């Protein structure tokens, strides 16, 4: 009797099914990225006021002469039609060029380059803490479901969900850095300094993934195959780690991907709290100074990271999909 659904029912077999799925997701990600680039560009092209005037004002020239305005308009390429300006900006972006900062007149890309690494380190730390803390607390809460440890974790996650990352950061600075003398309030962008702000980031975003992981693990512990594994002599711990956890990875990964959005947003504000030399603090400075090309570029980068994170999550859950794993 032939067996199998899903992957084996796909014409061409499992490898083709996987390829189709991956290409589909990649295509989707690219399309969304394209849409986001249009959105970002439109936001700034159609912002109220005259872009040339704004650019000059950002440099401190508040009452420009008609000559200065005209030359600025020419520099910014404002004479060309909208669609042309979008595409020239997009092509430039694909080559790594995002125009010039209104304020410094230097290429945006240079400044971005030097600030990228510190932000990546901070975000990585935050992600690490979020995944580890959410994973561990989810497992503990599921193992001791509805008993004291579970309730305690529930209380802690409610508090974490209610505490914005910048407040945690401020509290850390007040009580850990200043009172206990551990760590730095002015981060230098390195890995060691990224630990404290990373904790602040991770704590703020772990609530939903922890809850999702706990529920999926409980579903696994109460499932039919868990009962059968029990009948074969498996202990509850073994069932949790060896059976329930792998089957809970998919929903957990999706919850982490969604939390990645708030992680990215949190990174921006936490960089302000810790004076972190990254893209987030640069974004804030640029928003305050109305330096639009920089804001455009960083917004696009942030969007790209989020889309990448979602894509990564989808690929990971594909790896844990039984239909993708079966060998023929």
């Amino acid at each position, binding site marked *: 009797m032939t067996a199998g659904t899903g992957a084996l029912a796909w014409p061409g077999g499992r490898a083709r099914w996987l390829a189709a799925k991956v290409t589909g997701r990649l295509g989707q990600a690219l399309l969304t990225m394209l849409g986001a680039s249009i959105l970002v560009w439109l936001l700034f092209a159609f912002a109220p006021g005259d872009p040339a005037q704004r650019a000059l004002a950002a440099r401190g020239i508040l009452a420009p002469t008609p000559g200065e305005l005209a030359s600025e308009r020419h520099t910014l390429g404002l004479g060309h039609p909208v669609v042309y300006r979008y595409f020239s900006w997009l092509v430039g972006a694909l080559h790594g060029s995002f125009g010039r900062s209104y304020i410094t007149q230097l290429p945006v890309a240079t400044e971005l380059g030097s600030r990228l690494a510190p932000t990546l380190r901070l975000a990585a730390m935050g992600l690490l803490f979020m995944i580890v803390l959410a994973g561990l607390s989810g497992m503990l809460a599921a193992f001791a479901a509805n008993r004291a440890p579970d309730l305690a974790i529930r209380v802690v996650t409610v508090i974490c969900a209610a505490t914005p990352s910048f407040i945690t950061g401020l509290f850390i600075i007040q009580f850990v850095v200043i009172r206990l003398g551990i760590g730095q309030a002015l981060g230098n962008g390195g890995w060691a300094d990224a630990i404290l702000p990373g904790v602040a980031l991770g704590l703020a975003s772990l609530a939903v993934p922890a809850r999702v992981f706990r529920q999926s693990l409980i579903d696994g512990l109460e499932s039919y*195959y868990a009962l059968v594994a029990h009948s*074969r*002599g498996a202990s509850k711990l073994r069932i949790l780690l060896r059976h329930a956890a792998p089957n809970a990875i998919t929903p957990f990964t999706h919850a982490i991907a969604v939390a990645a959005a708030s992680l990215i947003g949190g990174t921006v504000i936490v960089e302000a709290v810790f004076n972190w030399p990254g893209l987030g603090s640069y974004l804030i400075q640029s928003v305050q100074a109305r330096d639009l090309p920089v804001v455009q570029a960083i917004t696009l980068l942030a969007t790209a990271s989020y889309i990448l994170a979602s894509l990564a999550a989808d690929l990971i859950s594909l790896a844990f999909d039984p239909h993708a794993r079966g060998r023929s």
Partner: protein
Amino acid sequence: MSRANGQANGQAGPGPVLRLTDLHITYRTGVHAVRGVTFSLAPGKCLGLVGESGCGKSTLALAVLGLLPPKTTVGGSILVGETDVACAPRRAVRALRGTVVGFVAQDPMRSFDPLMCVASSVEEAWRAKRIRPEPGTAARVLERLGITDPQRRGRQLPHQWSGGMLQRAAIAAASAHHPRLIVADEPTTAIDADRAESILAAIRATGTTVLLVSHDLNLIGRYSDDVAIMYAGKIVEHGPARRVLARPRHPYTAALLAAAPRPGHGLPAALPGDPPRLDRPIQGCSFAPRCGFAVSRCTEAEPELHDDAACCRLAEIELTPLARPAGPGVRRAGGAST
């Protein structure tokens, strides 16, 4: 082949493999699911436990493995060899599971971890006890149960196997360690009818002592040595399978047999009414409300098992022997059909 414990094939060992004494099981919700069950199971024999849904048979099957939900009250004793599952410490009961007592569940499609290959699931009882099985053990056991190309198929995931094959794998998992007892809880209910018989044959072919739970009296009767009919948490008839099927002594057994479709005998006679609620004490014979032979004294006292059947009117009623075509007979490992 590595053995997780020193137990040999189920035929050996003195004394009954399973002995239940006055077993009472009450769930946390107050439902008194098993109300005083006593029987013993000799080595190598197969006992078929038959009844409607809700009669307590699945509860009993789970109880033998110590798999009842927490806060369930268990009275009496469940002796598996020398261990009383009803009151032994958790560690001792867990030591039994998988290696001394095997379990075959009802739904093979859901019995397997979707992310673990079938061969690993078959070896679960060893891995759970941190024993490394010899390479190829699972393949050997699967082949014995009729799976072709077991090396390659064993590395596949459950969704790539059919229901019938998975149930064979479940039997392999339950029997691979040469347990003293296999408990099979409705092993054919979720299987296509044409495959059901081969599954039961496979279970008997392992040669182990079997407690076979089902709602299908005719099917089970053909593959068991003895049959016990359960109703409302008690055993109402208990005897050799051929005798019970040919000459039932309890009105409920007769009703069960009559309710099965038989070509050439007209429409099956369905049993009217419902089983009694088990969250309240029962007055008198639990079957009396639906029994065609009930008289007033049936509602006064609950009859005990006497002469293979629990009916106070045993000597008085004459149940028409049912003309049934002879079945394939009881299958036993290494033996001819009887």
